């Protein structure tokens, strides 16, 4: 009997069966009830859950341009620690990822870091200005093979520009990932518009500013028969529109962030900008609608919208502070807390929402594969019975703007494998040189 590189013993697969996973080189070579042959490394995983490596469709890696906040390397390490084997780097870097040159640079940096796949997202419009289409074809045909296009941080608000983008990307099997935010309705907006904003005197960001764009864009997508993805859905009304669009057969997918599954707008009452995020934290009512929609599949995926910012961008007055919060290292724990521990979802559904479906939306063929013989060995081993305390001083991101500092969260990522290589061992990310 030939020796294999790694055997992961006794972990529970997403479908609930307990098996041993055999890894040789970059691939899973067998999934068997009880592997008794020789292996170079044995990973004892009894009591753990093993999922296909997580795939994030919405990550801000900040490089090039804001390496003080995050680099492709530091973001990759944070991702690995969180159980991810693929990230999608948003285009709002400096320079903007609106040319083949920039997306190839980001792609190459991801390869060099080597912790996971970094798939660049291309800007829909030049400079994210919402006016002229960026070099969508050049980015699609580049080494980075871009399929997801987004002006995230900005809404493609001009309906004609959005229509043209939706049409044009069809040539490349692409998808437009829309940041749904009507800009005129949200000038200087600071937080969800409602009872809390009225009390705090912070300018409101109304739910309708998200819902109006979603409604328009599903209709446009239907009209030109294209593919649309809605970034960070936050409102109960938005859920209803997506549900309607899907029932009508429109090719739309939607994501929710972990923070919108857990946190609510009343946290702004501290005026601590660690809770300032765009789109903003909404109400308890919205949180429940989002959880239900994620469970029933109306919302297809969880995406982090990991948004690192340097200390000074958050250590200030609320209205001066930057929007965004860290997400990679806590995403799986938040999903366990809100969806698994509440009994709303199974681990199999988590595998779909955080690995299989995001990979399918992004056309990441080597990612999001079922854990079966012949699949790439991208996987994460989680101990769902352990918990951990979030400490912003210990995060692997270059930034520390996590809203969960001091929170006790369930679920510890014990091991992450990226194409057969172990990037996280017993909860620790391997150092760069050790690969």
């Amino acid at each position: 009997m030939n020796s294999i590189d790694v055997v992961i013993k006794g972990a529970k697969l997403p479908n609930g069966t307990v098996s041993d996973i055999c890894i040789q080189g970059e691939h899973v070579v067998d999934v068997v009830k009880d592997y008794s042959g020789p292996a170079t490394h044995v990973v004892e995983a009894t009591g753990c859950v093993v999922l296909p490596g997580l795939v994030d469709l919405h990550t801000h890696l900040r490089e090039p341009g804001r390496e003080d906040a995050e680099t492709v390397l530091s973001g990759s390490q944070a991702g690995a620690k969180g159980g991810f084997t693929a990230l999608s780097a948003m285009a709002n870097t400096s320079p903007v990822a609106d040319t083949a040159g920039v997306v190839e640079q980001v792609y190459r940096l991801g390869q060099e870091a080597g912790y996971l796949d970094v798939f660049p997202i291309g800007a829909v419009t030049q400079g994210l200005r919402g006016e002229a289409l960026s070099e969508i074809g050049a980015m699609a045909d580049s080494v980075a093979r871009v399929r997801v296009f987004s002006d995230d941080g900005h809404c493609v608000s001009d309906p004609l520009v959005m229509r043209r983008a939706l049409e044009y990307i069809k040539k490349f099997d692409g998808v437009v990932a829309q940041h749904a935010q009507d800009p005129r309705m949200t000038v200087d907006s600071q937080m969800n518009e409602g009872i809390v904003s009225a009390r705090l005197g912070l300018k409101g960001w109304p739910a309708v500013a998200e819902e109006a764009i979603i409604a328009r864009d599903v209709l446009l997508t239907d009209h030109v028969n294209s593919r649309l993805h809605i970034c960070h859905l936050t409102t109960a009304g938005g859920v209803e529109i997506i549900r309607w669009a899907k029932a009508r057969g429109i090719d739309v997918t939607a994501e929710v962030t972990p923070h919108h599954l857990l946190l609510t707008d009343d946290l702004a009452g501290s005026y601590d900008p660690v809770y300032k995020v765009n789109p903003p934290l909404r109400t308890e009512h919205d949180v429940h609608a989002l959880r239900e929609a994620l469970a029933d599949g109306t919302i297809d995926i969880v995406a982090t919208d990991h948004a690192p910012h340097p200390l000074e961008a958050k250590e200030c007055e609320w209205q001066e502070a930057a929007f965004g919060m860290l997400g990679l290292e806590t995403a799986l724990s938040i999903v366990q807390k809100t969806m698994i521990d509440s009994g709303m979802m199974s681990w199999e559904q988590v595998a779909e929402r955080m690995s299989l479906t995001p990979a399918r939306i992004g056309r990441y063929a080597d990612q999001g594969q079922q854990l079966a013989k012949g699949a790439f060995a991208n996987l994460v081993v989680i101990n769902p019975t352990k918990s951990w305390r979030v400490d912003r001083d210990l995060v692997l991101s270059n930034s520390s703007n996590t809203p969960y500092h001091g929170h006790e969260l369930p679920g510890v990522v014990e091991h992450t494998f990226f194409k057969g290589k172990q990037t996280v061992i017993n909860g620790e990310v391997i150092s760069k040189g050790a690969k």
Partner: protein
Amino acid sequence: MRHLLSIEDLSKSDAVSILDTAHELARVSDGAVKKLPTLRGRTIVNLFAEDSTRTRISFEAAAKRLSADVINFSAKGSSVSKGESLKDTAMTLQAMGADAVVIRHSASGAAQRLADSQWMSGSVVNAGDGTHEHPSQALLDAFTIRKHLRAGAHDLEGLTVAIVGDVLHSRVARSNVLLLSKLGAKVILVAPPTLLPVGVESWPATVSYDFDSVIPFVDVVMMLRVQQERMSDLYFPNAREYSRYFGLNADRMKSMKQGSIVMHPGPMNRGLEISAEVADSARSVITEQVTNGVSVRMAILYVLLTGSALEAGSN
């Protein structure tokens, strides 16, 4: 009580004791020697990151009448984008040994940020933060109302107050709604629907769009300043139309109740939200609000920095 950040943090008895203390301190101010030695050796910094000569002068006079040393730190137009950060400013004040910082800032929550941070250890008094709150203004308004309409009483039970104008952007309105209702008054907000916040239904107040139907029933009409720039933001068509529906002019004043009063936190736009005849009429207590402002701010500093209040009749 260490800070005064929001009326929300005050209990009814906290508020009453500040008003009672102000009442006692006002008696002192009426005497020949206006100054008390209470805060001798204490340093109070007026940190004004937004223009407001009136409020700053009022706090300065209050601090000086209590014998405190006053430093005016005017960081005009200051924000992170325009220079020193709030954190650096706070650490500077800490290094100077400020016992209290009176802060006026264009950002909602700036006073709370200062108080909650580890940047400085002194007391923080919110002298107006963005469109959030202006607690000392509400306290002086309550003091003025009590003096005129509830002499001898502690609270404002049985009174009805109309707050009229740009409620959406008004920190004065937010603080007054909280304080006046806490003290037992009934508050009616009168404004065009565009100038009321979404979520106002959760406030302890009722709402009316019709000033004329409200006027005959209220004991106090409190007018709010309308900023000229609101017109370009589409909140109302033009100044004349605003004035026609929501301005307090001599004609409207005629339908006011016997003994009712007119208030305005200043600065006024004469001819827009209030006519000159009304502002200068016998019903107007607007200049008295300014006078009372000093006593109330003395009381705030007194309570925060000595940790005690004065009771009625004490010396």
